[in-house]
């Protein structure tokens, strides 16, 4: 072992441990804060209770879980094809100057703070939907705003993934007489697959965790969404709306929703890693 390694390895290990420790501390903290509501009635009260009336002792989290999943997956469904299409356009079809401009535009879009998207949604998008189908503040508004927010993430990571495909592979495909379409579908996309999926997962995590923008446009009524025009409340918005004024059991209930959200993200990360591993070996 080189001299430098003797110091570097333990140092890096310690720093890595700190990261892991932070995650454990957060989980422990959430558990600890949610404890009062968990001991009194057990975890089933989050599923069995009808509705969320924390001051009256009813802590139903399921409607908000469904709303969170519906908003995030809806946004993903909308943003993934558009993001991927933009990436393919920039990488393979756009002239050099337009590609650069487009990429800058996406970076700019990614940098806009979420509260700005929310304000725009509240003052422009929601009234438009309300004119069509009241009340306007709805699952649809949340999906549209979230899709807009995660679109640059998906597009930019896909562009990077496609740019990382070795030129030799693409030249090989061309020399075999493949059309541009055949080259993109048959060679570039499968090779860049892992990076693209990683970007989608990153976008999904952002959609799940987004608070301000969704809080402003989703309507925040606690109910299981049955149509796109229903007003819904997501888990993050629940915490942001009520935390400042919550005490006792109510506060503990909010920490429980935070814990559920964390578990959801952990589960998603595990599933993503699993899926990526499967395709690599399969």
């Amino acid at each position: 072992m080189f001299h430098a390694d003797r110091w570097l390895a333990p140092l890096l290990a310690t720093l890595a441990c700190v990261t892991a420790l932070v995650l454990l501390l957060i989980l422990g903290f959430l558990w600890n804060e949610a404890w009062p509501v968990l001991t009194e009635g057990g975890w089933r009260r989050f599923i069995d209770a009808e509705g969320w009336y924390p001051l009256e002792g009813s802590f139903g989290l399921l409607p908000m879980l469904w709303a969170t999943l519906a908003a995030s997956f809806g946004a993903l469904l909308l943003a993934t094809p558009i993001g991927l299409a933009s990436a393919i356009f920039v990488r393979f079809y756009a002239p050099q100057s337009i590609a650069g401009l487009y990429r800058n535009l996406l970076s700019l879009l990614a940098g806009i703070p979420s509260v700005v998207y929310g304000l725009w949604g509240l003052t422009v998008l929601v009234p438009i939907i309300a004119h069509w189908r009241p009340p306007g503040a709805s699952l649809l508004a949340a999906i549209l705003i979230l899709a807009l927010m995660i679109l640059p993430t998906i597009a930019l990571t896909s562009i990077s993934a496609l740019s990382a495909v070795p030129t030799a592979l693409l030249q090989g495909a061309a020399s075999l007489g493949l059309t541009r379409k055949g080259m993109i579908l048959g060679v570039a996309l499968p090779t860049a697959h892992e990076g693209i999926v990683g970007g989608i997962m990153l976008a999904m995590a952002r959609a799940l965790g987004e608070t301000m923008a969704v809080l402003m446009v989703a309507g925040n009524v606690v109910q299981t969404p049955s149509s796109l025009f229903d007003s819904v409340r997501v888990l993050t918005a629940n915490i942001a709306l009520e935390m400042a004024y919550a005490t006792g059991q109510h506060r503990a209930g909010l920490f429980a929703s935070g814990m559920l959200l964390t578990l959801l993200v952990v589960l998603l990360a595990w599933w993503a890693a699993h899926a990526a591993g499967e395709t690599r070996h399969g």
Partner: protein
Amino acid sequence: MLRRIFLFILAGLLMLQSQTASATDERLVLTGSSTVAPLALEIGKRFERHHPGVRIDVQSGGSSRGVADTRAGLAGIGMVSRALKPEEDDLTAHTIAMDGIGIILHRDNPVNSLSDEQIKAIYTGRVRNWRKLGGPDRTITVVHKAEGRSTLELFLHHFDLKNRQIKAQVIIGDNQQGIKTVAGNPDAIGYVSIGTAEYESTQGAPIRLLPMDGVAATVANLRNGRFPLSRPLNLVTRDGITSELAKRFIDFARSETIHDLLAAQFFVPPPHVSR
């Protein structure tokens, strides 16, 4: 080596302790209502200027926290944006200002007034269309507040409703979000603090405040005590255990010297102090 570290930590602890001990002498902690907190913060700043060496520490967290902290002795003064309940008779309330809640509609909504019964019917979902109330044939969008807000508590209390009975289409956090939601939806009805609503409508927001029981929702009517949907903003203390500093602060907060601070935040002086 170990001993040196130990001594170092001990010295640090001692220093910390002596510091907090000297600070508590002239430090007053206020916790509670987020409606009162911004006001108390401004009053506190002015009080500190008049009394050098005094620190006023203001923390929000809801009226319930104000009551709990004052009882537990964690706060010298609690901030409570409602009248005290009968079971809170171990505390004394000192009213420093009045705040009122106004029902707001979009400016284009032709409905000019609603009775208490009609408002109740709208908020419980028994009336879902403006046509039945003399308006256009459009579905009503009911805007309600998130659980725990003191405006919500006052609203439910005045109309004798339980939160479970409310059938809302939009739930909002603060007053600004409520005003923006109603301003963007001609079919919406909501309730917000009168001061904020009056200010926003003079600034051009397309909203209209409805009169309650025939009394116009204005700051002037709030001041003369005629407006029914109003609440006192209180500083509360625990009976018998109030410090000299807390007493001085309350006297200061109820004096005329801070009336400009009340006006700046759209509150009005309580009836017995104003003249």
